[in-house]
């Protein structure tokens, strides 16, 4: 199908054709120098098609040829996706760099999967088996996973396996199976298939209510505002509040099989950090390079806007694909606001009637249907797999009362709101403990969390009151409660993302430390005066902070109660123990100090042992 360009305006082109036009089909605008620019039909009016161009439109002319395909914008799915760095249209960026150098020159497209590399194929189905879409035919090893090769997701009905390839080493485009449908037509299956990115990919027996916590190793998240596998959450916050750092930390430490990072319309430099660091970093859960469980999709802010919209859906589709394989996947998108802005730009060019802040009227439904693609599912063979989505939101002026934040809050299961006040005070991660919420159950007994929450809220009330009545006007009991809230904040909610040990806290450790904190906070100290209260709580606090820097010692809890997955030993463990102090030693100091306060046996001022050892 062919057409001609009638109008060009920004990244929008109007083309005229006498052929059939399929909405959301892709096409190419052919520039007069022969370069073909990928585009998508986003609106059809009579014989004209409105196209969004995924490249710069510089040089296009009225009358230039447009070639339409019948395919919709699709992702290539198959072994070899892990460890890749793609642009929003799934072009592998390292290969693009080899081909065209420093710049992303328009019109260069490279197949997403390596068609030459071979994979060790093990058939699972046998001739005569009756199969249907998404059933496993065999598998190949990819990274530490068994990558199932499935009957293409889009095939309707039942098929009989007529031929299946012998075990062996094959490239992805080898026919590994031939299936016949009910009317006897033969269809060939390779290791690669494709799926239109804007359609949810979910072949399943049923969707499950997600309940298994997805551990991020960030204390304030896992303990206070948990996420579950198959759940959704968002991180809104003004610039510099720590959205990206929080996602980076999560992408390293989250307890999932696969992490897909979608860098959507933000800084290129931040992706470079990840690209350069991940291959060097070890995944403590597998002992392998972190890159082996990661896929990076990047359409950074200077890359073409229409592809920004595509990047989010490409990431989503890859996540769903690995879910079909039977894995737990985390999709991180930074920032969904840039995606919303891309929608706004395109909508503006289409001259649609604008809604609030010029966002299109369908903003909410697009955001909702995106997050709806998350979920925990039971596959046909009863295995359970999930896609979890975490998106950052960058509200204008840091004000959450704006369309993107509001639309997102309506559909997610957890809200991690970052506050400017907390990030200014360097209280990282700057998740506001009073504003944020989660509808999910976490790793810690929710009754205990509620008790702690009460202290936090009360502490805040007292603090506010104190700004009016002053310290003098505050009763010592209230004053102590406020100090306890502050203690919980600084010793538990705050976490140093840049420290090897403190950056990630395991489940067992969170439980153990939380219990200890709760115990201390619910202890009735009988402080003589406010100075003593302040002094003692500061001391306890600094002991707990030191504790956070000490490597975890699992021997403090009975073996039968341990839940942590076995980690492969990392190099720094043990080695730094002397410098950082030992976990059990500091625990002893805490117990002794608290006891001494209760006994009144010691004058805290003269307690030498309690001074901090490292800063």
């Amino acid at each position: 199908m062919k057409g001609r360009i009638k109008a060009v305006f920004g990244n929008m082109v109007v083309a005229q054709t006498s052929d059939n036009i399929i909405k959301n089909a892709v096409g190419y605008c052919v520039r007069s120098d022969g370069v073909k620019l990928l585009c998508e039909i986003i609106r059809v009016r009579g014989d004209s098609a409105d196209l969004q161009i995924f490249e710069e439109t510089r040089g296009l002319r009225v009358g230039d040829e447009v070639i339409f395909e019948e395919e919709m914008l699709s992702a290539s799915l198959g072994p070899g996706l892990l460890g890749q760095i793609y642009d929003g249209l799934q072009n592998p960026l390292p290969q693009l760099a080899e081909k065209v150098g420093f710049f992303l020159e328009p019109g260069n497209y490279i197949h997403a999967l390596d068609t030459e590399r071979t994979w060790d194929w093990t058939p699972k189905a046998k001739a005569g088996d009756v199969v249907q879409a998404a059933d496993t035919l065999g598998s190949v090893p990819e990274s530490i996973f068994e990558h199932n090769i499935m009957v293409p997701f889009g095939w309707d009905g039942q098929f009989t396996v007529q031929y299946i390839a012998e075990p062996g080493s094959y490239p992805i485009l080898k026919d590994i199976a031939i299936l016949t449908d009910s009317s006897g037509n033969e269809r060939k299956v390779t290791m690669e298939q494709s799926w239109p990115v804007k359609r949810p990919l979910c072949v399943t027996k049923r969707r499950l209510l997600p309940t298994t916590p997805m551990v991020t190793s960030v204390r304030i998240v896992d303990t206070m505002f948990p996420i579950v596998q198959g759940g959704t959450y968002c991180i809104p916050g003004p610039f510099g509040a720590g959205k990206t750092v929080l996602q980076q930390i999560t992408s390293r430490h989250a307890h999932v099989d696969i992490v897909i990072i979608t860098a959507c319309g933000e800084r290129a430099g931040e992706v470079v950090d990840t690209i350069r660091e991940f291959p060097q970093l070890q995944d403590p859960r597998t002992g392998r390079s972190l890159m082996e469980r990661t896929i990076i999709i990047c359409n950074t802010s200077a890359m073409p806007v229409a592809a920004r919209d595509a990047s989010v859906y490409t990431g989503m589709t890859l996540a769903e694909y690995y879910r079909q394989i039977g894995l737990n996947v985390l999709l991180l998108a930074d920032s969904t606001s840039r995606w919303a802005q891309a929608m706004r730009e395109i909508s503006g060019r289409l001259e649609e009637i604008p809604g609030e802040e010029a966002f299109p009227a369908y903003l909410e439904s697009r955001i909702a249907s995106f997050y709806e693609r998350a979920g925990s599912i039971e596959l046909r063979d009863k295995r359970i797999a999930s896609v979890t989505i975490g998106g950052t939101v960058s509200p204008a002026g840091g004000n959450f009362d704006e369309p993107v934040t509001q639309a997102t809050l309506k559909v997610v299961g957890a809200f991690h709101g970052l506050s400017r006040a907390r990030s200014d005070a360097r209280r990282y991660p700057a998740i506001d403990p009073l504003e944020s919420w989660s509808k999910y159950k976490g790793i810690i007994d929710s009754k205990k969390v509620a008790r702690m929450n009460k202290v936090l809220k009360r502490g805040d009330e007292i603090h506010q009151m104190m700004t009016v009545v002053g310290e003098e006007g505050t009763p010592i009991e209230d004053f102590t409660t406020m100090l306890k809230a502050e203690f919980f904040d600084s010793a538990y909610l705050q976490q140093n993302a840049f420290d090897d040990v403190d950056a990630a806290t395991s489940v067992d450790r969170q439980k153990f430390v939380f219990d200890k904190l709760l115990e201390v906070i619910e202890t009735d100290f009988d402080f003589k005066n406010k100075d003593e209260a302040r002094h003692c709580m500061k001391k306890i606090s600094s002991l707990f902070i030191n504790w956070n820097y000490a490597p975890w010692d699992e021997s403090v809890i009975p073996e039968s109660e341990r839940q942590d997955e076995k980690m492969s030993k990392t190099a720094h463990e043990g080695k730094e123990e002397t410098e950082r102090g030992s976990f059990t030693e500091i625990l002893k100091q805490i117990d002794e100090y608290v006891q001494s306060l209760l006994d009144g046996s010691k004058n805290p001022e003269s307690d030498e042992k309690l001074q901090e050892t490292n800063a």
Partner: protein
Amino acid sequence: MRTYFDEISKIAGNVVTVKADGIGYDELAVITSRHGTSLAQVIRLEDDQVSLQIFGGTEGVSTGDKIRFLGQSFRVPFTDDLLGRVFDGSGQPRDGRPEVKAETVEIGSPAVNPTKRRVPDKMIHTRIPMIDIFNTLVGSQKLPIFSSAGEPYNDLLARVGMQADAEVIILGGMGLRHDDYLTFRHRFDEAGVLGRTIMFIHTAADPVVECLLIPDLALAVGEQYALQGKNVLVLLSDMTSFSDALKEIAITMEQVPSNRGYPGDLYTQLARRYEKAVDFDGAGAMTVLACVTMPGDDVTHPVPDNTGYITEGQLYLRHGRIEPFGSLSRLKQLVNGKTRDDHRDIMNACIQLYAQCDESREKREMGFELSDWDERLIQYGDLFEAKIMNLNLNIQLFDALDECWKILAECFRPEETGIRNAIIQKHWPKKVLQEETTETSKA
């Protein structure tokens, strides 16, 4: 093919629509009217109607004027002959010297492939302690100076330009007062850096649209030098004028504004410029320092707000000083661990103490009684402002760190600074070092 077209059908704002065919999107044209000629750029094609943005403005343009298309998008000559020269927003000399003849490069090149970027690791020494110690500038960083209108932001920009160790300096001026332009020129001349400086200048008296190309011109030339392996520093002032020009065009084109009249793609437009800052893997680097005046001193105004989401930190200029709070270099941790072992400790301690000084000063203002500690904090604050925050200083990083130690020693005992013992032992000025037990806190 015909290159002259004269059937102008519409003149509105700075946009002229003419009947023409065979014209490429983004293509450049020259419009000749009674008042002379001006460059123009295609911003919309619709059948045979071509809309052009006229850089010289449309005042006096008539429906009988002629438009000649150049068959290519905007290009800028690239040669060492540019050094020491001054150009306007359409790339013409404004220093009275002849036009530069050389190979040209396209402006507004595509984005750099992220896999061809390096993680930056080189500190740029500006010899301004508030930057070097506290908000370290890193090669390839993009950093704005958020400033209210009356602040000496151009002064600061000129200072950095003169003192930074860059091989090529490019100044992009947008909406500059003529005096400011002359001052820049004069100061670069005085400092002897004019020979490695290129200026693209749009003054407030020039047509508004001409300022739109300034960042692209400056960055395109800078990019070429960076590709040659050079370390380039690009100074842009004032990006708010640039954004306002974008706003003006968007309104003329009847685009729906998103926020306070600014177009919905303001973020993208700004990002496409700032993201040109780069450290090439296998070539040089380009650093971008930009002034952003904040209308109404409001950081949530769309221009500073969108900028903050794009850049790698920000410097707040207030009351003639770089604000210690709120200012942030997001890349500083990439370099400040490798300068001198006390750099990070001094950075943290001095700011924390200065924050406490603020509280003590407040107490003083409210008429509360001051403790000895308060008095010393205030003494510290005064010294810190005079000897470190002062923007007229021109000192080396190590000297600045030493100066900080001196001030600390004058006002405090070692353990009061919160600096860890190992560092105190090594750096506390010898004469005043007393044996003290130190208590430091991580919090």
